[in-house]
């Protein structure tokens, strides 16, 4: 009897390992819950994989889940869309995975500037910006300059004049060098001729606490990252790197208004592997455009302080090429590229 129990428990454990090992795709498929019957000859005919280069919970992940969620709830896509997280190597793992699926129209990728910067850096490996077919640009994430609420820097002028006093007198906290916030910092330095003391933190989540604790003087962030803290009066935004003021924050002046000619937006969009059939690309372009008109999407934009900015695939493609050139130049200046 005792023998039996022991063996039984052991087999149960082994079985559950195998089940949960295969559980990833199973669980997520059940959850998408879309209609299961598609018109037989039309695309898409199989479930679709939407790849994300970050761990769950990060901005790109939330974007991907929101897209898949809205498309299935509003029954805009007949097949379930599974979100697959493949984090690692600043996105290299996810990007090379998708690039290798050339012309496979059942794999999509949530795209952010990291796609451009990592593609540029991985020279020699198996993907470049040309490995991806643009489907649509969906939104733009602004960059804001943030200080502690009780900081002595009340606006950009205070910050820059303090920085002018001595090189590295003012410290900026941010992610790894090469990430968006470091790029914005670099652009501000170029435009004003100052040098900041850049302190790099690992994951994005460690940056706001560093500012809160007074360990750095300012950070550059996406509005959503600091929204709660700004409303809670712990942090303050002193400038936004955009052409016009944000709708959700009309009393925050732009950097341009304060004499600093820096504009920076992080795009958010969807791409597919290069070489997919034209009708598949057109399908997604249409479906995604419809999605941006839904209430659920508009709520997502508002909750995450994103700026609506829909681009069809041709425009998005041109935009990506321009971005690649800009990033290449900036990264060479920053010493990230030879």
């Amino acid at each position, binding site marked *: 009897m005792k023998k039996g129990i022991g063996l039984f428990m052991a087999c149960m454990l082994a079985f559950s*390992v195998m089940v949960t090992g295969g559980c990833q795709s199973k669980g*997520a498929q059940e*959850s998408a819950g879309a209609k299961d019957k598609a018109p037989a000859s039309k695309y898409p005919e199989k479930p679709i994989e939407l790849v994300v280069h970050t*761990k769950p919970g990060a901005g790109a992940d939330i974007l991907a889940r929101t897209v898949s*969620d809205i498309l299935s709830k509003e029954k805009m896509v007949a097949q379930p869309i599974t979100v697959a997280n493949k984090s*690692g*190597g600043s996105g290299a793992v996810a990007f090379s995975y998708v690039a290798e699926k050339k012309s496979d129209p059942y794999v999509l990728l949530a795209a952010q500037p990291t796609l451009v910067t990592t593609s540029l850096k991985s020279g020699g490996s198996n993907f470049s910006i040309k490995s991806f077919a643009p489907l649509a640009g969906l939104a733009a994430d602004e960059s804001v300059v943030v200080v502690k609420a009780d900081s002595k820097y009340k606006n950009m002028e205070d910050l820059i004049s303090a920085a002018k006093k001595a090189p590295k007198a003012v410290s900026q906290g941010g992610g790894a*060098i090469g990430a968006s916030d470091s790029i914005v910092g670099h652009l501000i330095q170029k435009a004003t001729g100052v040098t900041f003391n850049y302190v790099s933190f*690992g994951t994005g989540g460690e940056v706001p606490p560093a500012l809160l604790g007074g360990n750095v003087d300012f950070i550059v962030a996406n509005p959503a990252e600091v929204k709660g803290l700004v409303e809670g009066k712990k942090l303050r935004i002193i400038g936004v790197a955009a052409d016009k003021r944000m709708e959700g924050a009309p009393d925050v002046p732009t950097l341009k208004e304060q004499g600093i000619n820096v504009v920076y937006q992080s795009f958010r969009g969807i791409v597919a592997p290069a070489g997919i059939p034209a009708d598949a690309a057109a399908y997604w372009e249409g479906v995604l455009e419809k999605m941006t008109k839904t209430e659920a999407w508009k709520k997502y934009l508002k909750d995450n302080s994103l700026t609506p900015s829909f681009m069809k695939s041709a425009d998005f493609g041109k935009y990506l090429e321009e971005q690649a050139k800009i990033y290449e130049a900036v990264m060479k200046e920053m010493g990230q590229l030879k």
Partner: protein
Amino acid sequence: MPDVLTGLLNGFGIAVQPMNLLMALLGCFFGTLVGALPGIGPSATIAILLPVTFGMDPTSAIIMLAGIYYGATYGGSITSILMNIPGDPSAVMSTLDGYKLAQQGRAGAALGMAAISSFIAGTFSVVALMLIAPPMADFAVRFGPPEYFGIIFLGLTLIVYLGGRSVIKGLVSGVMGLVIGTVGVDPMQGFGRYDFGSVRLADGVPFIVVAMGLFAIAEVLVNIENPLKTEFISGKLSGLLPTRKDLADSRGAFLRGSLIGFFVGVLPGAGATIASFLAYGIEKRVSKSPERFGNGAIEGVAAPEGANNAATGGAMVPLFALGIPGSSSTAILLGGMIMYGMRPGPLLISQNPDFFWGVVASMYIGNVMLLVMNLPLAGVFARLTRAPYSVLYPMILLFVLIGAFSLNNSVFEVWLVLLFGVVGYAMRKLDYPLAPLVLALVLGPMAEKALSQSLTMSHGSMAIFVSRPISAVILVLTFVMLFSPLFKKMWASRRASAGA
């Protein structure tokens, strides 16, 4: 105080609704299961189940996800104790004494102690979360890179206490861990180190792969040298639960584990793993008979298990009080909260009191559920150790290989785990302790990052570590712990010669 009471009572009202009770139960159950399986951790599970919760009430959803979180920190100890396989990095410390206890026939006592300690510490951390979350969070953000470096440095010095009989071998093992920790992308400059050009190693060697290889695979390899027993182990399984003496011995461990775990958990970026390391090391350091550690000291299970559960409550502090995620699991919870339209930040508690108190009350209930589920099961699990090795070891290998593969759905990690299995085997044969290596592997990269950040902030001056009060205190504490045995000896010999 009255505010807290009304809030809590309101919260219990919400938490005992049948749906929420069910969610808590599901969360604890899945969490324990997932924690026990090496490779799949709480953050992956929370990620998988997050979409399932869409459409549910946000409070119910977070109740389940939180249950997974603290269920998993307990679950990791099951395989740690029974099979020397840490199911989760925070369970590595439990293998040291837990597995020895299991080999002595006291698996039930070890598992039971883990459950009890997790309950006590988990409840403590929920109480603390409830009472002092906002001021605690404000204090925690004052911890900048110099303070983190201090704590991590403290953890690294505890390596000498994990060395077993030979301190030198312990140090060698620790240095190996530091070296392995340098593989990956340089934290400040962004270029790759020792990654052989492979994208796979860009983030370093995954800790869980090293732990599984070193502990589990090596254990199997070492044991198959002896003729394998093919019958069940005879002899009594003494005591399926901890004895009164065990509980009494562990009183200090409960307290220390709870405090250390909660406090470390609050710090964003430090979590259950570091908490369990520190708790074990400090427990051994303050023990009156430290030589028992590593050979089946029950406090060696009570302290780290308590600490890692207290750390989950602690990690909720920055999440709820400031909207800052302290670990990858809380980051996913945060993402979930955003998707439900909540605005995590200092105003969360006042804007969504039902949510906050509902989740807090449910965490109390969840801790009780864990205890009730797992104490009886401790006896059942313990019987697993009586399975014949010819069945047990292939199963261990199966778990480990599947676990390694499941990390990234790739065979690369499987090769890595086998490599470390061989390394672990060599270390065991040559009598090098394993724990310092894994400790240094986790703490080394963090120490390097904190050091670089601190020196950048101070423009290269080391004075920053002593000019900041908290950092100075931590460093003093570290030196006291390191050198006090020496001082004691000097003091004692002085008194002896003075008296003679």
